């Protein structure tokens, strides 16, 4: 076994090793993804200012015309929720890529900008498979329940002064009711799949729901006590002088934790936990049934940060540069502030997702029942007391 001398240049064929951020063209990325925020904002302005203005010009803003206007707005909101889902999936993939020293989507559209269109088309083209062991009706119904429940939360979310579908005075109670309903979809979907992993995922979802919903409801109550209103518009108006995050710092922290649990987001993603339950409750779903679970998850990934902004960060409040509140220009500017504040919170949630491992499911329950509920009650009493002596 004599050694064959190998010339040095043939000895090693250098390959491209390592991550070079410059190759992903960061300025193009920033431009494209900022432009997407404005697309989102434009749809919001169109829905809440454009459509009413159009109907008013046509003289259809009373009676059945009003119903038609609301219907058009709901359709536009459905479009908005689809845009949110497509956008957030793309942002999630791109952001995880950045955190993990890789590029993320790069090839379809500028800086990978239309990658999710293809993701959605793939899901549309896939067979919608129903396992033989599944309970077909429940199995089919579950994604619809989850999506509709998430989508229904849009009804009370104000994007600017008066820019809301239903400025009801029970908005917070409505939110509690509707967000609980979305957990039912997960529960039913997992139980009806006829799969043991899905069953465990569904049971975990149920256990998780009863743990985080109570502190969440207590935090809503605290905000209502402090601001004196159950309407989201009223809550935002009450924060004119001081954002709630300062007097209600403790409920704010509890609400962020409960939101992570409601989102089934790392560190509380027990119902899906891909390294434990493979995909958990949605393991048997494919095609558009799966896409609706996915859509609901990403709509919530927008709505829960939006609620953080509404409840604790002054909603749409920001510098108006002398514009009169209630005018179209002021509304457009306010909704832009709201969008940007929400985007910051979405980013924080994604950051948490990229960094942390997962807790164990019983640890969340223990934490929720032994720490979060007492602290939420303490926060409630403190807020009531502060309100008595302060205001």
């Amino acid at each position: 076994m004599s050694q064959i001398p190998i010339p040095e240049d043939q000895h090693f064929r250098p390959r491209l090793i390592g991550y070079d951020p410059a190759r992903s063209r960061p300025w193009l990325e920033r431009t494209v993804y900022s432009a997407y925020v404005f697309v989102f904002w434009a749809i919001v302005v169109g829905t809440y200012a454009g459509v009413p203005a159009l109907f008013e010009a046509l003289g259809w803003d009373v009676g059945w015309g009003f119903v038609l206007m609301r219907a058009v707005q709901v359709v536009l909101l459905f479009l908005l929720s689809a845009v949110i889902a497509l956008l957030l999936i793309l942002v999630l993939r791109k952001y995880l890529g950045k955190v993990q020293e890789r590029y993320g989507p790069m090839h379809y559209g500028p800086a990978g900008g239309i990658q999710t269109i293809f993701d959605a088309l793939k899901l549309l083209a896939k067979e919608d498979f129903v396992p033989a062991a599944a309970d077909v009706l429940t199995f089919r119904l579950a994604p619809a329940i989850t999506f509709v429940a998430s989508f229904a939360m849009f009804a009370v979310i104000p994007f600017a002064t008066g820019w809301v579908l239903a400025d009801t005075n029970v908005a917070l109670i409505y939110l509690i009711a509707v967000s609980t309903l979305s957990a039912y979809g997960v529960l039913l979907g997992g139980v009806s799949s006829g799969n043991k992993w899905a069953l465990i995922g569904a049971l975990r979802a149920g256990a998780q729901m009863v743990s985080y919903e109570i502190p969440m409801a207590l935090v809503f109550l605290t905000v209502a006590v402090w601001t004196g209103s159950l309407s989201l518009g009223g809550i935002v108006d009450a924060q004119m002088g001081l954002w709630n995050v300062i007097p209600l710092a403790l409920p704010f922290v509890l609400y962020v934790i409960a939101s992570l649990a409601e989102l089934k987001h790392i560190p509380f993603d027990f119902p899906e936990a891909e390294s434990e339950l493979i995909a958990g409750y949605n393991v048997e779903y494919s095609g558009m049934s799966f896409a609706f679970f996915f859509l609901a998850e990403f709509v919530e990934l927008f709505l829960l940060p939006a609620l953080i902004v509404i409840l604790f960060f002054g909603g749409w409040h920001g510098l108006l540069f002398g514009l009169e509140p209630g005018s179209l220009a002021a509304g457009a500017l306010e909704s832009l502030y709201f969008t940007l504040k929400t985007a910051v919170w979405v980013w924080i949630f994604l950051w948490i997702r990229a960094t942390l491992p997962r807790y164990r499911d019983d640890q969340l329950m223990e934490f929720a029942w032994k720490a979060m509920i007492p602290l939420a009650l303490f926060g409630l009493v403190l807020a009531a007391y502060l309100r008595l002596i302060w205001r």
Partner: protein
Amino acid sequence: MSTMSLEPMPGRTDEMIVNMGPQHPATHGVLRVVLGLEGERITRAVPHIGYLHRNHEKIEEARTYPMVIAYTDRMDYVSGTQNELPFVLAVEDMLGIEVPDRAKKIRTMFFELYRLASHLVWMGTAMLDLGAISPFLYTFWDREIILGIVEKTAGARMLPNYYTFGGVRRDVHPDFFKDVAAFLDHMERRMVDYEHLVLESPVVHARTKGVGVLSRERAIARGVSGPVLRASGVAYDVRKAFPYDAYPDVEFEIPTSPDGDTYARFWVRFQEMYQSIRILRQLVEITPKTGPHKGKAPARIKPPAGERYRAVENSRGELGVLVVSDGSDKPYRVKHRGAAFSNLQIVPDLFVGAKFSDAIAILASLDPVFGEIDR
């Protein structure tokens, strides 16, 4: 026994029998564990192996001695040359081949580089099992550098087939020592980040402390070795107990922990990575830059009739091989003693009574590699 090998208990409806694996993402390949679950608590656990069985030992009986080395690589495929060493040492002993000092040091450097690579893979996959996706990508970049260094010299990345009787197959690349020194600088910076991400993370503490406790007595009785044994407080390391190659020339410590839980196993592997960096730093200094890389070995390897057992401390524990020779140019029998195989024996002990999520963390802390377990 049925194929499930776990029958439902008569009269009990509260126990669910689930099949974890062989396609489960957290089983590090193809382990199948049939679990009895009572809610989230595991009542029974029966592991099944053999889905990656490739008949290594029998194939090796039909190959000549130099050909066997290439097969040993395929056992523990994340730690490359570490698998070749016990067989090479055993045959060298039987033939009385002298290994030059420089060749020993080069072998040890590759051995420790692969220990770092293997522990990096462990760290990434263990964190993936705990739900953190990012460390997996970080550790794989670092491993990529190690594999690049190995490729420059040995020509292959994961299965280099580099050791041979009497030394190594070819001299190291001229850049080798420079590359290793640069990598160690990089690795020391990265270890700070890994400490933050893994060892100091409160979520990791919550998931691993007090979980899957393996007592010292049980660890010895079950024959586990390597980091799993040292995390139970037994300071047994083949590198110190039966030194081979250049280990007598370098200073290092055996990190042990008295706790025996999953966190202790994480911690011990982390400390081993620091020790590997320390060993490599010393070897970069003391290894002669030029000199023989291979001693005199006969052209036809025909060990005299007899048998020899040699063991090394690979990334998972004691990797041994028993070579039986009948005087021909093919081994009569080759028996591998796999560390991951022995470590997997404690799975039923640790799983029963644990929560299902704990089982995932426990399995991650054992760091099984199924190429070596199934062979």
